């Protein structure tokens, strides 16, 4: 009898051990940047991670960019957030400032693997709140054929807005339907461009708005001069009449355009002329976008260590990073730039180094908890300026007044 009992006990213990050993952690992961062209790539990345970590399983939930953040906010607000989720820079700030992402500082993320600038962007007061995964930016694209036709030297890294304006005027003179430059008068372009004149939309200590400071007025004035009046070098909405900005460029009607590097595939496919890129010129100094996609962990997640392993792998595991490079899916935010030579060697465009140079001038969006409201106020005023006579000073005074009245700084 004792023997049987002992045997049963041993068997029970064995089964318990076996169960514990095969206990799997499942993590839900919400992502938008892979939706569409890169879904297979992301799935392969996840497969690599699962192979290296057999006790962790990832449940991938992909949504297209348009509705991703509505869905995510509903899930967070409804108390059912995914364990791990992807965020772009603006939303990262919104989520972090509201405590909707977990503090990752003590979860063993290998910080040395990531470029310093990107780590700074996802940290606050010394604590780490997300792990960067990929990076993208805007650069100045230019149509070599049009430049040749106008007898101009190609844009150089040292260019400022003044140089660009001069070249744009010469290209505009080439024909009725040929335009010189394109940079939308929008909230995004504006908050970035004012940095190029040493300005900012809000004071350094976030206690006051500085929208209508003189250096900002100068920047807006230059932007408006491009797109207004008889001598405009940039087409306004009516001039474009339904033709997209990218299409104008690929159809050879636009000399220069400031837009994202995700345009490489489309431009390669559709442009019938030679084109190249350069770091986008700033008003005085350079200021560029920093579009990073980062991964964060929900504060409700029950398996934060496993989740941390996952996002660390997505950001810096060598095999996973290689997959990203092979698929030309944005750029990894790793510190070791030598691995990126593969990216540099693909043409067009020839001057891919400009993409990395841009990182040196990266400017982050204002870290306001009410950034959404501010963006809307500013965007609404800016978007009307193309087609009316309001001066830069008046517009910025209006914006300043509205921002103050909305009590967005608490």
């Amino acid at each position: 009898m004792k023997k049987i009992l002992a045997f049963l006990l041993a068997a029970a213990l064995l089964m318990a051990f076996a169960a514990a050993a095969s206990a799997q952690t499942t993590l839900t992961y919400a992502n938008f940047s892979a939706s569409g062209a890169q879904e297979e790539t992301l799935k392969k990345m996840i497969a690599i991670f699962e192979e290296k970590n057999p006790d962790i399983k990832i449940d991938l939930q992909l949504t297209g960019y348009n509705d991703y953040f509505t869905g995510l906010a509903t899930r967070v607000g409804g108390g059912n957030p995914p364990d791990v989720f992807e965020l772009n820079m603006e939303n990262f700030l919104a989520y972090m400032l509201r405590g909707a992402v977990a503090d990752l500082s003590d979860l063993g993320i290998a910080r040395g693997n990531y470029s310093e600038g990107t780590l700074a962007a996802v940290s606050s007061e010394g604590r780490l709140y997300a792990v960067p995964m990929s990076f993208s930016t805007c650069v100045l694209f230019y149509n070599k054929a049009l430049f040749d036709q106008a007898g101009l030297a190609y844009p150089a890294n040292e260019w400022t807005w003044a140089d660009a304006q001069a070249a744009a005027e010469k290209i505009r003179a080439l024909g009725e339907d040929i335009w010189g430059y394109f940079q939308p008068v929008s909230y995004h372009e504006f908050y970035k461009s004012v940095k190029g004149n040493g300005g900012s939309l809000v004071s350094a200590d976030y206690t006051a708005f500085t929208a209508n400071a003189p250096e900002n007025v100068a920047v807006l004035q230059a932007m408006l001069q491009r797109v207004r009046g008889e001598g405009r070098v940039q087409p306004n909405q009516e001039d474009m009449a339904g033709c997209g900005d990218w299409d104008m460029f690929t159809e050879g009607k636009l000399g220069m355009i400031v837009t994202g590097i995700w345009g490489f595939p489309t431009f390669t496919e559709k442009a019938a002329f030679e084109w190249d890129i350069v770091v986008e010129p700033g008003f005085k100094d350079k200021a560029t976008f920093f579009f990073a996609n980062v991964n964060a962990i929900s504060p409700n997640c029950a398996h934060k260590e496993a989740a941390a392993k996952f996002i660390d792998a997505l950001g810096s595991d060598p095999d996973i990073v290689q997959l990203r490079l092979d698929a030309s899916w944005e750029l990894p935010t790793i510190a070791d730039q030598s691995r990126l030579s593969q990216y540099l060697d693909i043409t067009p465009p020839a001057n891919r180094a400009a993409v990395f140079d841009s990182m040196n001038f990266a400017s982050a969006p204002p870290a306001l908890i009410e950034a959404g409201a501010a963006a809307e106020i500013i965007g609404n005023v800016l978007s009307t300026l193309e087609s009316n006579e309001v001066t830069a000073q008046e517009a910025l005074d209006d914006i300043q007044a509205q921002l103050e009245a909305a009590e967005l700084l608490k």
Partner: protein
Amino acid sequence: MYLPNANTRRTATAVFLAPSLIGVAVFCLLPIAMSFYYSFMDYDLLAGSMDFLGLKNFARILTGREFPQVLLHTLTYLGLYLPLILLCSLGQALLLNRSFRGRAVLRTVFYTPVITSWVAAAVVWTWVLSGHYGLMNQALSLFGIKGPAWLSSRVWAMPGIVITAVWKDTGYYALMVLAALKSIDPALYEAAGIDGAGGARKFFSITLPLLTPTLFLLVVINVIYGLQVFDSVLIMTDGGPGGATTVFLERIYKYAFRQYKMGMASAYSWILFIIILAFTLLQFRLQKRWVNYDA
């Protein structure tokens, strides 16, 4: 209806009413009560914070710059849409009322826009309303008219949305009018014909008055839905250009999901509800003046 057994009546009432009532209570009334509660709070969707604000949300909305514009845009939509939808659905119904070869096909044709989803319709019409290359402006140029930049123009964006909506909804309301047309006793027309009335006279003296109950229904429904216009605006213009097509639901959505302010969004929808209620009550009050319920 009379039932001999009171108990049967009670059980039957309960059984028949239960599914719908439970659904309404749990998925309609309860969320409505919750949203009423939120409207007095500063409820941040992401942070989960809930601070009591009293009437501050309502005050901010009603005294802000934005509200008159939102009201104007929504009423503009209604003012343009309502007459057009009544005219077009009446017209279509009259066409479909006569029997002719291929009528069934035509009915299907007219109904196709109705069954299209807004996602698909918006894709197509954003195209059609394109400045240079769009179907609309190319057609207008055949008559020598230079079409505006429609969805990129502050003045013409809302009319563009209205045109799309009329195209999309006419088939549906036409069927309602058609059903009403068919229930008009043909004997009335015969009698009028014997008295020497012509087509137009028949229309204005018989058809139109007898249609008024249906037209009333149409107006009530369309005011309620029109004040809540959303999908078309969000997909086609996103409230633009430059805030020229902001409407109630678009604002509510953006307060909730771009600024994460559920309190403001809830307050906004309660204000909208009062407006809708007021319009509806007004219409019911006025119906005695023009709606003809005699058979």
